[in-house]
């Protein structure tokens, strides 16, 4: 993957997490071992190109955002619902902002609702063009995959 794509994903992730949740995002320091991500969500886009954006992230990051914004809930079911809501909205913001960073502000895209992947495994890539970045979010490991296919040259 080119450095430009890696930097664009890092920049967009930093903007999304810092502006909406006051959390810092850094490039992954290969020397350190970070707690692995245990939540995953994905969403697709259709328009000037088709594709998919997926994100894996640690539950403790989601809990931090829930705690800061929505407040933790003692009911495990409600707490899981809040984690998933945060996961989907962070991915939604990541996807929308990545599309603008990648394709500019003219094309119109239709976005699918984000879906939580129960297995927490990153989906297998289905596109020829796949950009995959590992990030350090609040000292935990996070993973973003940006897949692009059927790009229209209009």
């Amino acid at each position: 993957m080119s450095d430009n794509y890696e930097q664009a994903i890092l920049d967009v992730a930093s903007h999304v997490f810092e502006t909406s949740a006051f959390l810092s995002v850094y490039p992954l320091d290969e020397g350190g071992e970070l707690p692995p991500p245990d939540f995953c969500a994905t969403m697709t886009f259709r328009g000037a190109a088709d594709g998919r954006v997926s994100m894996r992230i640690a539950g403790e990051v989601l809990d931090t955002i829930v705690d800061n914004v929505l407040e933790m809930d003692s009911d495990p079911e409600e707490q899981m619902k809040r984690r998933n809501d945060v996961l989907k909205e962070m991915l939604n913001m990541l996807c929308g902002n990545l599309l603008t960073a990648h394709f500019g502000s003219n094309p119109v895209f239709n976005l699918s609702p984000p879906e939580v992947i129960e297995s927490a495994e990153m989906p297998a890539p289905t596109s020829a063009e796949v950009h995959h970045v590992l990030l350090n979010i609040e000292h935990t490991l996070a993973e973003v995959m940006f897949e692009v296919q059927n790009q229209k040259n209009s």
Partner: protein
Amino acid sequence: MAYNILIVDDSALTRTVMERTVRMCGVEISEIRTAEHGKAALAVLEDFWPDIVFCDINMPVMDGLQFVQTLKDSSEWSDLPVVIVSTEGSETRMEELRRNGVQGYIRKPFAPEDVATMIQQVLGAKNNV
């Protein structure tokens, strides 16, 4: 004058952040109500008269585009100011929404000052009519 605000977004995170932001933006607020999608927002409008609506685009059941169109087609709500709050950054889509009567656009993630500026712009314009 105190204002009524309606926030329409399927994300509890965004509804909560938006509600807090609106309360902090220096405008006197009477009441804030929220809805998870356009259809739920239409139900809220049966007994609530907002001065401004903040609405997401990508929502289940009834999305923001359908909701805006429903308001525009309604005799009761066709002049209700709607501000779109969305992750989408397409200027083409925003131009289409403006032609359909949308008053403004805030991109997610937003800073509190983005919301304050938009409220003052939209409600200020409304009060000058």
